[in-house]
């Protein structure tokens, strides 16, 4: 225990004397939280429509004005030339081509039904789907209006239908910032903790001081724990700092217990820092640590469910996520912060994080060699 305290004392002296460390600890969360949370939004705005209105009737103009009136769409350009419209889709200037056929109005009057062609740029599949559902919303409200106006309210007897009334729980205004902030914060503390921790250990290899430690009677677990704790403290500090920022900047409501959040945070960080240390016991240079950590980080983050819901991933991917610490922590962060989940709701996550933490920490202690 005494030995660990001496290692901690040394690490903190070195951390606070390192000129790049303090800016890292404060500026990285500040900048990432403020920029990424605003940028990583699913809110769809400014969808550019290229209009090909071959009908130019009152009805078609009214339909177009419905789109113009929506905050989500704007008419980027209009032409009769479909080829020109296609080119603007190809050059990425328009997101959507709306083709109103020549006989739009007359068909509608005669048949009570008419087609409208939409060509959506689906390079970003998510966005395309969103555009489609927004368009549907506008069309259905336009439909109702047409029916009401043309057929008269009294005459209009809609077929029996189920009307869904939606209320969004845990984020009633569907504020994406509230959804993204805990997720981005989870990633942020992971990157800061894992990278700094791994780099620190391998740096001792690079400058050769590790040899001097290896000829001392220091025990492997003491060394690893002494290397882990300082960065655990830093990462937890950044978690607190990030939550405070989110509270101030986005008015993020924190529904659950902070003690629970930090308890889980500690458990989670022991796991990822353990992985960082494990990587650096295998690697010889900071560069190698960077690359290998980056590899794991990419997989963990993209499979962790920050941008895409884990539930819609293929089964094998969901199974794989069982060993992904970010997946659990992302879930914990969001559930505790937004929903106010308690410990009993998160037993599975608790057990999983304990297992992951123990495995990574043991691996790093096992792999650290005093004798090569």
């Amino acid at each position, binding site marked *: 225990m*005494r*030995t660990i*305290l*001496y*290692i901690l*004392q*040394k690490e903190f*002296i*070195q951390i606070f*004397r*390192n000129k790049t460390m303090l800016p890292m600890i404060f500026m990285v969360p500040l900048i990432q939280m403020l920029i990424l949370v605003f940028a990583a939004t699913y809110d769809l705005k400014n969808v550019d429509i290229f209009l090909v209105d071959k009908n130019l009737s009152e009805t078609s103009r009214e339909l177009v004005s419905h789109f113009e009136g929506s905050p989500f769409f704007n008419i980027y350009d209009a032409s009769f030339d479909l080829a020109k419209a296609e080119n603007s889709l190809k050059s990425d200037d328009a997101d959507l081509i709306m083709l109103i056929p020549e006989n739009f109005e007359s068909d509608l009057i005669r048949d009570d039904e008419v087609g409208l062609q939409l060509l959506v740029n689906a390079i970003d599949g998510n966005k395309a789907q969103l555009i489609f559902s927004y368009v549907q919303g506008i069309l259905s409200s336009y439909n109702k209006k047409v029916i009401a106006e043309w057929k008269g309210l009294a005459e209009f007897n809609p077929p029996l239908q189920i009307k869904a009334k939606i209320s969004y729980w845990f984020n009633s205004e569907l504020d994406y910032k509230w959804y993204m902030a805990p997720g981005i914060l989870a990633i942020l503390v992971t990157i800061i903790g894992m990278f700094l921790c791994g780099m620190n250990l391998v740096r001792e290899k690079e*400058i*050769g*001081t590790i*040899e*001097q*430690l*290896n*000829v*001392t*009677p*220091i025990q492997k677990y003491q060394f690893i724990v002494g290397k882990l704790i300082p960065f655990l403290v830093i990462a937890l500090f950044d978690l607190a700092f990030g939550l405070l920022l989110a509270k101030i900047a986005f008015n993020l409501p924190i529904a659950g217990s902070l003690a629970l959040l930090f308890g889980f945070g500690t458990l989670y960080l022991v796991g990822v820092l353990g992985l960082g240390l494990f990587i650096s016991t295998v690697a010889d240079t900071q560069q190698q640590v960077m690359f290998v950590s980056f590899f794991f980080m990419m997989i963990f983050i993209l499979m962790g469910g920050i941008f895409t819901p884990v539930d819609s991933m293929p089964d094998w991917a969901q199974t794989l996520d069982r060993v992904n610490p970010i997946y659990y922590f992302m879930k914990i962060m969001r559930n505790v912060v937004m929903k106010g989940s308690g410990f009993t709701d998160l037993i599975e996550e608790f057990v999983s994080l304990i297992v992951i933490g123990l495995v990574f920490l043991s691996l790093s202690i096992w792999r650290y060699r*005093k*004798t*090569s």
Partner: protein
Amino acid sequence: MKDELLKTETVTETNNKVIQVKNLVKKFGSFVANKSLTFDVYRGEIFGFLGANGAGKTTAMRILCGLSSPTSGEITVGGYDIYKETEKIKKNIGYMSQKFSLYEDMTVSENIRFYGGIYGLSISKRKEREAEMLAKLKMDEVKNKLISSLPLGWKQKLAFSVAMLHDPQIVFLDEPTGGVDPVTRRQFWDLIYEAAANGKTIFVTTHYMDEAEYCDRVTIMVDGRIDALDTPDKLKKQFNAQNMDEVFLKLARGVS
């Protein structure tokens, strides 16, 4: 040659083998860095390990310190078996590596506090040792300065003293005077003599042949083998040489 030497020594000295190495072999893949080394080191002697770069000196020293494991051979250091009692060995040895190994971004005092703490010295003991050491090195004024601000010679002397902080039986020095000016080198050797006079065993590698003259006994390694092992005087006689430089050149030439 070696038998002759043993005869001249007293019985207590022969029982005082502080390092015993028998048929030490170290292979890195197909490359054999140490080809069956056999030698003993006695308590309180300055044992020089000489050889050209790549002769296998550092490899052998790292094995004795427990930093590297031998491929085969029977080795004890300080009476402890190198395979089974590595951690006990570590309490009894000090090591100063070729790469400078104090923390550059910490002060002299902080380095001493850290290593003292790691070796389990009590706070009072550590402070006592620190005061003693800084007085001897005349470095009391710089104790709150960062290591990075000190000249190389000072750093080396400090590193040596820190390696002896916990009062080890044996001190391993791997080319301790590399890149240091002649005056500081002389001062460094004074420190080594003093430690040996206090009963410490000094195991030192070097490729400065003049330093070989300062050793009690010298081993010359060529190409992974021990080609000669004796006192500097006897070696000079044996090879009919004026100084150790000539001894070394004759040995090295004999190989190529």
